[in-house]
């Protein structure tokens, strides 16, 4: 690209950073929201969907972290 700045790399770093640093963070927060729905007082309320949401979110986060570590090591 440019002699002083590899814009291509910069964009990749920024997009990966946003996906991992803000995206996964939001997914984790969504998982907590799921947990709180599951723990709600109302009988029969949102227990199962809440737990499902939380489980899915935490799995996505774990997978993301694993991928991050793998990428760093496979350089």
């Amino acid at each position, binding site marked *: 690209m440019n002699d002083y700045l590899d814009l291509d790399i*910069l964009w990749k770093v920024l997009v990966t950073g946003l996906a991992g*640093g803000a995206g996964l*963070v939001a997914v984790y927060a969504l998982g907590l929201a799921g947990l709180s729905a599951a723990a709600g007082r109302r009988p029969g309320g949102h227990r199962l969907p809440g737990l499902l949401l939380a489980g899915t979110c935490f799995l996505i986060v774990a997978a993301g972290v694993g991928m991050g570590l793998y990428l760093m090591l496979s350089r």
Partner: protein
Amino acid sequence: MYTGSLLLSVVVTTALAFAFTNGFHDTANAMATSIVTGALRPHSAVALAAILNFLGAFLSLQVAATIAQGIVDAGAITLTVIFAGLVGGMVWNLVTWYLGMPTSSSHALIGGVVGAAFIAAGASAVKGHGLLTKVLIPALLSPLAAGLVAVVGTSLVYLITRNVPERIRDRGFRVGQIGSASLVSLAHGTNDAQTTMGVVTLALIVDHTIGETASTPTWVVMSSAAALALGTYVGGWRIIRTVGKGLTEIRNPQGFSAESASAALILAASHQGFPLSTTQVCCGSIVGAGTGRRPAGVRWGMVARLVALWLITLPAAALVGAAAWLGARLIGGVQGVAVVFVMALIIALELYVAADLKPVNASNVNAVWRSKPEPSSDDTEATPTEGPTS
């Protein structure tokens, strides 16, 4: 070869001493947020960081011997230049530790080597283009990128969990925070232990103790990792306090989003080979996390002082590096290097004694931060329903 190996041992000792300062300087990057939010007790936090730093050092051994490559002409690198560069980096690390300011250890080292090479071999030994593209431009961009990611992450976190009861929210973000801080520690160990390994390997190559294409000897890996981890365990409490309480008063959700932003950027950048400073990324993330919740909660005066110190890190370390090289040269030979080494130790001791007059340690690291100008006594409001500020 007696004097030769003596010189080499002084250089290696200095490199390990530098790694030690690197360690305690950077404890804050990973652990300041967990310490001030109480997610981890101070001693547990530094112990965890030290262990992960040590392990991280063994994860990847590819960088070796690339420090200052493309920035300083390889022909200008002698043992004395490496030594003087290390002294420059170490002394600047100690001065900024005394001031309690998180500055980049790798910039300090590069500054020291550039200064020493400049005075030893002239201006032509320093490659301006390499310095610009590998150090200065990334230094400008990485804290901004980290800040941006953390602002977005923090806003989303507060938005998504605004109706989550405090009990679940606090617990969840504590766990998340410890996890993301651990990732930062691990990545820090991988990146920064390699800096020291690279320097020691370079010294061994320059000294012809090992061949140019040789891989890093195991004892170098072990000792570099141990020096870094030991420094991390000692903990730069002054810096931890500034990072966790001085820039902004960090809370659990912010600590989580800040450390996640740092971890994601450091991992992404090291995968792409984009050279960024862990310290600058972490500070950028923390300021971003502060801004994402409430811009007025950030002590912008403190941020400005920090940025000013970042700007002078390279030239200041270069000055010390140049002075160390001149001193060693004027006295001459191994004696010169030994005298400069002892002088650096004396400076270190004086700074330690000066710091001890107003000590910051595990017991008072979380004390209330008193600053006159900013009206940010936000210890009273902690409502879980608070959304992101516009």
